């Protein structure tokens, strides 16, 4: 797992660390993670006024282009641990792949998975497949195109 995490994270310059703060809210900050291959932990630096606490946390990166396409990303889930007086590390537990819109194969896999998940969602609730408001969608898409011209 560590090698896969290292390979995946190397594609991005920064990552977003998220932990739960003392008030019970998620708190996210962007950081430059440092990989420690010896201990298999990820070193993270927090802003000076952010108070973290040890516990479950995650690191994610994502990319999209100027047209909001070529989507890719990941999430590393683990435990945030104190290191020394000022330092923090994330000890990874799992790597979760994000949406990947790059390439035909990736898109096909996303399509197949999404259709299966949606049918399971509907079956679990005893719902028939709802009808989408295509006329309304196409009207708004036409308006969106006009605004670009």
């Amino acid at each position, binding site marked *: 797992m560590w090698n896969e995490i290292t390979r995946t994270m190397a594609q991005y310059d920064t990552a*977003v660390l*998220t*932990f*739960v703060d003392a*008030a*019970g*809210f*998620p*708190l*996210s*900050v*962007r950081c430059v993670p440092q990989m420690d291959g010896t201990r298999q932990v990820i070193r993270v*630096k*927090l*802003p*000076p*006024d*952010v108070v973290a606490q040890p516990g*479950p*946390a*995650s690191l*994610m990166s*994502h990319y*999209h*282009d*100027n*047209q*909001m*396409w070529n*989507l890719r*990303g990941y*999430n590393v*889930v683990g435990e945030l641990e104190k290191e020394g007086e000022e330092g923090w590390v994330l000890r990874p537990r799992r790597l*979760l792949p*994000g949406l990947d819109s790059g390439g035909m194969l990736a898109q096909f896999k996303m*399509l197949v*998975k*999404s*259709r299966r*998940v*949606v049918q399971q*969602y*509907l079956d679990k609730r005893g*719902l028939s*497949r*709802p*009808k*989408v*408001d*295509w006329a*309304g*969608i*196409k009207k*708004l*898409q036409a*308006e*969106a*195109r006009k*605004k*670009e011209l």
Partner: protein
Amino acid sequence: MKPIILPSEVAAVFREFRTCEFSTIGRDGTPIAWPISARYLPEQGQFLLTTSIALSQKAVNIRRNPHVALLFSNPTASGLDNPPAVLVQGIAAAPDQINTSVAGLEDYWRDTIFRRQPISRLYSSNALMRYLMDWYYLRIVITVRPRTIRWWPSGDFSQEARELVSQSADKLKC
């Protein structure tokens, strides 16, 4: 109740950023962020997001624990020069209803999604695509009412943030 005025650079981030990192808390207490497009509704003082039921875990998490965060830290395609990074922490709602109509969400679909992600228009382009991609439009609506907003000028996380705190009845205006 006196409305809270947002600094113009923060309002610009809400208006122009294409995505935010949206965090919910899982069953085991782990917070996980995924990128999502969010629309700020200044008159209502809240954010509007949607998610396909193919990606419904965040809605399930919200119903269990409504504490969420939105971090606006990726300025790609925003057109903003040296914007701040902005963290919103708030309380979310995600009613267990599948929304298939654009009614009431016209601005969200037209301006937040279709204008900014032109390729999504392909999903309705012909009968085959509509059959294959209908799942994309089976949506759960999520709203977030902010409690705290922090921002790091120029996206510099090595500095201390500036902060606004909103009481539940206040509206954030810009």
